[in-house]
């Protein structure tokens, strides 16, 4: 079961994971990562923009790579775009597999590659207005693990 989505409204990861788990009968384990907008006293909101002709195809291509690389029964990749507030979920990746190692490694792999597979530009709203978030060098280090 493969479920790849871009959402423009807030979502409840628990409401996705229950049906996802049910849709993969025979699984041994499910690993799920949920990323949230970290509260920061100075940040009122976060906006994610994207280039639609690249984003969803990029997420599907990443799912293809994960299915090729790991023995998976199901993979869920859900990402928010638009304006988010602190504490809201921004990304949810869940992998169902017969074996634990495949489920955990697939989630780790997808999270490390999501930024290079689907491009998002982020800006933060502070008291003095919107500020673009610059690229970070850690991302390259995460990719070098694979």
């Amino acid at each position, binding site marked *: 079961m493969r479920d790849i989505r871009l959402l423009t409204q807030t979502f409840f990861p628990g409401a996705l994971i229950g049906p996802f788990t049910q849709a993969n009968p025979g699984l041994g384990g499910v690993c799920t990562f949920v990323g949230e907008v970290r509260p920061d006293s100075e940040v009122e909101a976060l906006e994610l*923009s*994207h*280039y639609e*002709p690249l984003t969803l195809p990029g997420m599907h291509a990443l799912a293809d790579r994960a299915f090729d690389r790991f023995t998976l029964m199901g993979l869920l990749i859900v990402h928010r775009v638009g304006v988010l507030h602190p504490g809201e979920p921004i990304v949810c990746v869940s992998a169902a597999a017969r074996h634990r190692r495949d489920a955990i490694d697939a989630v780790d792999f997808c999270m490390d590659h999501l*930024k290079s597979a689907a491009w998002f*530009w982020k800006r933060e709203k502070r008291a003095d207005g919107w500020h673009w978030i610059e*690229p*970070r*060098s850690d991302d390259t280090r995460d990719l070098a693990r694979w």
Partner: protein
Amino acid sequence: MVLLGKLADLAGTPTLTLAPPSSAPLDWDGVIAALPPALAAAAGDPRNRVAVNGALLADKADLQADAGDEIALLPPVSGG
């Protein structure tokens, strides 16, 4: 032309329409020449990527856009 991230802010708009090239298809130098100066400087950042009709170009020098093509200018994505 679609501008992403802070390039849209710089241009004051997420999309620009470039005058169609007089004869030959539009290349990367032609795009830069057609942009307002402040945006042209930012667009020249070598980390920016270019896509035509949703397909990323390996090299901006490969750009050959005809009238009606959608050129997207993609700055480096945000960390975090």
